[in-house]
């Protein structure tokens, strides 16, 4: 995928759902084959000293999900504006879309993990202007990154930011 899309940067979470591989392994592999790609780790997990050393060695940047979303978006946007790279326009647009999608997927994973804590997601409903949907349907929307799913991911990040501004732990 990296070869096909020529991205300016690659964003990965630490845990990627594989038992013997982490996001740092993926970054290391991509960095070895495509040394110009900017490597970024976007996670809420605490890093061990060894993992931090590996990140530094790779020259990868670390963004925390708790307070690094805006910074990550800004940096991705700066890269896209062509300051560091001059990608062909069409592949650049695709690459930006892909990066945005990666970020949305990483946030969706965390949000879905919280939504899955709900005891009975099929029996609780949200009503919105006469339409009704269950938490189970909301989970599917967030996982599928539908418009409603993205809207709720946005609300979730805003809610966390609001709580942080109020000095509360989100």
């Amino acid at each position: 995928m990296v070869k096909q899309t020529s991205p300016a940067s690659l964003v990965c979470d630490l845990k990627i759902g594989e038992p013997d591989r982490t996001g740092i392994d993926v970054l290391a592999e991509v960095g070895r084959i495509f040394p110009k790609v900017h490597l970024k780790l976007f996670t809420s997990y605490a890093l061990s000293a060894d993992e931090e050393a590996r990140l530094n060695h790779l020259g990868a940047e670390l963004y925390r999900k708790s307070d690094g979303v805006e910074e990550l978006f800004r940096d991705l946007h700066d890269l896209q504006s062509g300051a560091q790279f001059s990608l062909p326009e069409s592949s650049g647009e695709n690459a930006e879309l892909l990066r945005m999608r990666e970020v949305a997927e990483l946030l969706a994973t965390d949000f879905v993990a919280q939504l899955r804590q709900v005891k009975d997601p099929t029996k609780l409903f949200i009503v919105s202007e006469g339409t009704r949907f269950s938490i189970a349907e909301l989970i599917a929307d967030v996982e599928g990154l539908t418009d409603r799913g993205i809207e709720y991911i946005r609300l979730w990040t805003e809610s966390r930011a609001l709580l942080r501004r109020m000095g509360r732990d989100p």
Partner: protein
Amino acid sequence: MIKRILGAVRQSYRLRRRFLVLFIPFDGYGEYDAVASVERLTRRLFPIYFKRRRLARYVRSFSEVASERGLSAPTRLVLFAHPCRAHTRIAINPINDLESSLGPDWWTHPAGEHEILTAHVCNGARILNRPSYGRVFPRWVSYSEKLDFFVGDPRFAEQWARVSERIVKATWDCDDVSRLLQRVRTIYEEAVAEARDSISFEEDGGVLALHFTRCYRSVTSSEAYNGLQAEHEIAVEGL
């Protein structure tokens, strides 16, 4: 201290002839009608001198409601209602399949323009920002987005009822919309924190906090919304 008490008494006396909380449920939403839920749950929450009215069916005009409730002056109004499908008027249950929405003319009060309107209505800002409404409601607080509501657990409806109660009281207290908007935003900030503190994500408290976050984000006023529109128009002209 005495000055403050006198001020409150004077305000109370003045508003008794003008203040109204109006609920307009819509049967089309059946058991999931958020307005009907809030109306039911707030029945015992307001002071008895807060006049309230549930408008279950179309009536000829707002004047009819006002005179029935003894409101003889321009009113300060809190409205809980739904928009019509086109987001141009307020939806209401029709009589004989006619008149299923309320337009600006319906709201006209013989005593003149309404003092302040707090409209708990999805996309209410879009409706109220139309010039035809400006003549009737020049000062308002409402929302620029649709609002979501949780059903299936009475605790969520109760949280909404408490928030609604605070908004009604804020409308009673505040004489200008910028102060009222600030108060309502603070109410939603507190509601987000309370939802997270009192109900865990496991019990959906997290999702309830998201609904209040949407209200916090989208609540606006006649002044703030017009400012945004003006900025947008300048930006478009500059392109």
